[in-house]
């Protein structure tokens, strides 16, 4: 009978950890399922949609599309399976702590999803007659009022589509305000620690960008900023709380100095979660600030958007806000568009997007805000800051925390790669966290810290979840300090090992092409399917 077991395999070998790395027939590993591309499993004839009527005869002459398009179809059964299998190759907030600094990966309440799908919101057209969409305008107006009150600002532009689009809105307001004053100021000052979107936005709007240095303590160097201010400076873009995880203590002094020099203060509101309900940017002299509804107000990140970036504005910038916007009157809500802008809003810088912004995000954000209320939102900020400080103080003994003595951190804790063994880097720590079942923190940002690791736990993590994460990160930090070679090749347990990003950029393959399959890719016939 030994012929049936020629290798002499015994069950206890599993426990011995003999790292049975042998491949399976399918390439699957139990619940870790490989999935081919739709172009490999689908066909042009297959469809997952039935129609009630047969096609009408088309009479489009030479404009008719006759050549094959090359779009594969799958039946509904196959479609559901394809995307379900793909979904299982993703990490997500629903699976565990997702400490991606600057991104505020908090729990996404499902009531928000339910509300966004109510037919009056999901199945309404943006150009319907105004009398038929008063409820939609009411949502926009109610959310706008909350954002104005929470930030202590004068007004809000709701249409920007995401944070960077909001930055553009604020910067265009500044540009329009300067134009109205008849001034041609061409420089925007941006701290070195800023998100890349800040300098990119200023440049996109035609400004020159200059860096403001930081102090050793991780804050804006007020003296250097003041020294640079002058008649050519249009304004500053400051992130507060900043990307080093610190509150800019001198924010009011910065604003006063910028205003005295004739400039405007743009605040990047990506980190508003740390202060929502506890501090109003309007009290700090801010002229414009975008609010990422997908961060602070928990609209889902969706694997990379959609976001939503309403911009709160000071009285000085409000006249220049973009079209359209909603106003409230005795007879109901009204949408101010190009038509009446001449009377109602003559100084507007114009329109930034078709229609009125991210309505599907407004319904979710308003639902979130109403669920929390003023008291709950304050608690959100407090718990977010408490959780981050708990992580910072629990790990500062094992990971270098460059600004640990600069005061309490806000809602994110910053570490560096200082003190790791020769040849070990932040990247290795990040990949080690993957094996421990976590999404890594933000790495190599902000640029002012070598090998930065920016950890943002958010308020929706329990103490037990934090303790486990702290334990995992401590263990990985020790491995990196002790030079554990296994860490260099992590992750070992993810759907893929480290990917060759250099090869991807050197010879880009950006779309599927039948004949040009990559080496090692099985031909469609080997994969099977329909």
């Amino acid at each position, binding site marked *: 009978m030994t012929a049936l077991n020629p290798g002499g395999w015994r069950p206890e070998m599993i426990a011995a950890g003999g790292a049975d790395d042998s491949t399976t027939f399918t390439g699957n590993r139990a619940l870790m399922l490989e999935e081919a591309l739709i*172009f490999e499993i689908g066909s*042009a004839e297959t469809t*997952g*949609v039935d129609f009630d009527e047969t096609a*009408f005869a088309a009479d489009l002459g030479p404009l*008719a599309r006759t050549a094959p*398009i*090359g*779009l594969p179809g*799958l039946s*509904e059964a196959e479609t559901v399976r394809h995307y379900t299998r793909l979904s299982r190759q*993703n*990490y997500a907030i629903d699976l565990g702590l997702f400490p991606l600094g600057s991104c505020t990966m908090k729990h996404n*309440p499902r009531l928000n999803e339910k509300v*966004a799908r*109510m*037919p*009056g919101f*999901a*199945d*309404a057209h*943006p150009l319907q007659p105004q009398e*038929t*969409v008063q*409820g939609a305008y009411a949502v926009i107006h109610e959310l706008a009022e909350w954002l104005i009150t929470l930030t202590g600002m004068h007004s809000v532009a709701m249409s920007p*589509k995401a944070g*960077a689009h909001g930055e553009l809105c604020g910067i*265009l307001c500044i540009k329009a305000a300067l134009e109205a004053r008849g001034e041609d100021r061409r420089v925007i000052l941006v701290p070195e620690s800023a998100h*890349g979107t800040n300098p*990119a936005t200023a*440049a*996109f*709007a*035609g400004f020159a960008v200059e860096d403001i240095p930081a102090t050793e303590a991780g804050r804006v160097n007020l003296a250097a900023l003041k020294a640079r201010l002058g008649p050519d400076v249009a304004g500053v873009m400051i992130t507060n709380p900043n990307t080093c995880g610190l509150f800019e*203590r001198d924010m009011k002094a910065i604003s006063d100095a910028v205003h005295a020099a004739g400039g405007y203060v743009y605040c990047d509101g990506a980190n508003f979660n740390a202060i929502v309900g506890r*501090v109003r940017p309007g009290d700090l002299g801010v002229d414009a600030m975008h609010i990422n509804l997908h961060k602070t107000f928990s609209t889902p*990140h*969706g694997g*990379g958007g959609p976001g939503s970036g309403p911009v709160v504005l000071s009285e000085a910038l409000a006249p220049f806000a973009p079209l359209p916007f909603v106003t409230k009157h005795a007879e109901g809500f009204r949408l101010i568009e190009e038509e009446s802008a001449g009377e109602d809003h003559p100084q507007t810088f114009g329109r930034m*997007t*078709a229609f*009125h912004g991210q309505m599907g995000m407004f*319904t979710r954000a308003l639902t979130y805000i*109403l*669920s*929390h*209320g*003023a008291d709950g939102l304050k608690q959100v900020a407090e718990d977010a800051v408490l*959780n981050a400080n708990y992580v910072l*103080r629990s790990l500062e003994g094992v990971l270098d925390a460059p600004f640990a003595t600069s005061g*309490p951190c806000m809602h994110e804790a910053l570490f560096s790669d200082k003190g790791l063994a020769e040849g070990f880097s932040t990247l290795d720590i990040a990949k080690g966290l993957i094996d421990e079942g976590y999404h890594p923190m933000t790495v190599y940002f902000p640029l002012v810290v070598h090998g930065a690791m920016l950890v943002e736990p958010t308020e929706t993590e329990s103490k037990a979840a934090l303790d486990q994460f702290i334990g995992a990160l401590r263990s990985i930090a020790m491995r990196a300090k002790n030079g554990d070679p296994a860490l260099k090749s992590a992750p070992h347990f993810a*759907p893929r090992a*480290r*990917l060759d990003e250099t090869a991807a*950029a050197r010879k*880009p393959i950006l779309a*599927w092409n039948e004949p040009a399959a*990559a*080496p*090692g890719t099985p031909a469609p016939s080997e994969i099977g399917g329909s």
Partner: protein
Amino acid sequence: MRYLPLTTNDRSAMLATIGAASIDDLFADVPVDARLDGPIADLPLHASELAVERHMAALSRQNRAAADGPFFLGAGAYRHHVPASVDHLIQRGEFLTAYTPYQPEIAQGTLQMLFEFQSQVARLLGTDVANASMYDGSTACWEAIVMARRITKRGKALLSTGLHPHYRSVARTMAKYTGDVLVDGDPSLDAGTDWAALADSIDKETSCVVVQYPDILGRIDDMTALAAACQAAGALLIAVVTEPVALGLIKAPGEMGADIVVGEGQSIGVGLQFGGPYVGLFACKTKYVRQMPGRLCGETVDANGKRGFVLTLSTREQHIRREKATSNICTNSGLCALAFSIHMTLLGEAGLRQLAAINHGRAKQAAAELANIPGVSVLNNSYFNEFTLLLPTEARPVIHKLAERDILGGVSLGRLYPANADLANGVVVAVTETVTAADISAFAAALKEVLA
């Protein structure tokens, strides 16, 4: 608070670990006069799920949903049937609650989906490559104009008068501040496009010509000659598609020589959503890929030689290049791209062609029935699922009177071009597969009554 897991005991224990006496100590860096002591006054406090749902449902009921009766609106946002499985799949937590795939080893689901999306979009638009999405069609259109300026090093863009007025408005806003020169104008009520005239206007300063296909009045035209004229003059042809379902029936812009094709992907998988979030499509010829805005997903292999996907060519992007980036875009429209991709996979080529044919056929039925009303005519010689109806009177009041009869009868040109009296009698009418023969009859009967 149902979303906050920390208990009072947890908070005390954590403060002790931190070495802080109270939570206020953690806000010590906030200037004293900027700290709020209690919840902001005059705002409501937290509320139960039931209470919030009740409030939001009441607001939802104050809108007339498209499904509640005959509905004929388009003009850049189209109502199509979205299969139930699309909305189910995009709500899987692994898609819904993930973010930009910065860590590809644990984001292959999103990355493979994006690679498939890019491939589907490129094929649909008839181009070589597409990116991983933009915010929407209007912002994608401006980004294409900026990209053409970078490529040609020229600063004058010629916009067809058939371009959606909101798209044109976005471009005008931006051009005011970037110094780009735009040549544009309102459409006139002609059956044909202004493309031949545009071809004649191209000069040595022209970076690009921007045309919409089908255009704002629903007209379709062959852009082959215009593409050739652009090429001869060293300018780029940018085609804008706001109704991608059309490309199941009519030639793709890329097939006719467009260099950059942008679009609004909303009509496949995304739904109306009162204007957003939508999904911007952005595609071009391979030779221009390094000048593209936005994220790109590419194929590669992992350390074990297995195929995998990563975000690539990111040296174009803001997080690497900062002020030298091709665009400031960061977060795009990932989940809407997923919805688009799933719906497109369900359709497949056969389904898309059938869907497009039904749309066109229904529109022809509607055009014929509406043109039967005395004094009413159809402007277009050619159209896909949307055409311009010319009324014997100003259209805006008619639209409101139709709404009183619970018929949403299209978008008046007066709404789109309020300053242009020449267009006041026009209405753009969209007819998709969601419109029934009974809807068309009800619309025609009501219009006849209102005009009588």
